[in-house]
């Protein structure tokens, strides 16, 4: 049995890095760089993600002394990365916002789903029915089309697994507003998947 020595916690490394320990800073970078890159891809694009990644760790490096350890280091870092992604988007030309309303679920006059159970269930099999690469491309496209007010809470809550309370704190929203926006994002994305597998939502 291999016994690995316990890894130092993020908060300890952050304190050491703030005191000028470059090795501690490098450990934090190597611990989080892949996650922050993935987050940056989800909030911006593969083209912009490298810049967001650099900007995030530059801000971390410059502001380590202001990290008090009263929140988790990961939460603090995600907040910086999310802000860096938003700033990056703001600096780009505005893309036309598409509410993707055509993908919302449909109901008849009595409020009953118009699709059959088989049709309604089909989007959950999108990964079996579509080529993996094609699905990845479509996923990137649809995230980019989603208005930021839905994209940010959806990415943080559902793709990065933050809690509703954490997302609310990060985006300056009420938890109820986070729940509502995440819900609407899921409805639109579900309908989009439905369309991809050949069923009108």
């Amino acid at each position, binding site marked *: 049995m291999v016994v690995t020595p316990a890894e130092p916690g993020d908060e300890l490394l952050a304190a050491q890095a703030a005191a000028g320990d*470059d090795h501690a*800073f*490098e450990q934090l*970078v190597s611990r989080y*760089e*892949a996650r922050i*890159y*993935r987050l940056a*891809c*989800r909030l911006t694009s*593969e083209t912009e*993600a*490298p810049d967001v*990644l*650099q900007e995030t*760790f*530059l801000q971390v*490096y410059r502001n380590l002394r202001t990290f008090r350890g009263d929140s988790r280091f990961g939460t603090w870092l995600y907040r910086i990365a999310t802000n860096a992604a938003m700033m990056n988007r703001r600096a780009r030309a505005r893309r036309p916002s598409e509410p993707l309303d055509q993908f919302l*679920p449909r*109901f008849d006059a*009595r*409020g*009953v*789903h118009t*699709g*059959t*159970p*088989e049709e*309604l*269930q*089909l*989007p*959950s099999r*999108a*990964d079996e029915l579509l080529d993996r690469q094609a*699905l*990845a491309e*479509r*996923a*990137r496209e649809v*995230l980019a089309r989603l208005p930021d007010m839905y994209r940010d809470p*959806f990415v943080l809550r*559902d*793709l990065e697994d933050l809690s*509703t309370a954490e997302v609310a704190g990060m985006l300056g929203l009420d938890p109820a507003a986070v*729940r*509502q926006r*995440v*819900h609407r994002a*899921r*409805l639109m*994305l*579900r309908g989009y*998947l*439905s369309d991809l597998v050949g069923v009108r939502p």
Partner: protein
Amino acid sequence: MKDIVCVTGVELLNDYLEGVLTADVRAALDAHVAGCQRCAAFIDSYRATPRLLKEATDAALPDDIQRSLRAFLRAQRH
């Protein structure tokens, strides 16, 4: 409360999953879904959506981007 139909059930779905509904609304929703194949199928695909998008956007950090990040950060420190 009023009987739940599919459209109201869908509106309440995330609040249901997040556990913020009152017990009576929750029970009414459970009762509707238990007898509605459409809602059961819808909920299945609704819950699958985040998982599918998460897997489909699971980008790995390319080596060249990792190298340039580290070189950039070293340059900032010197």
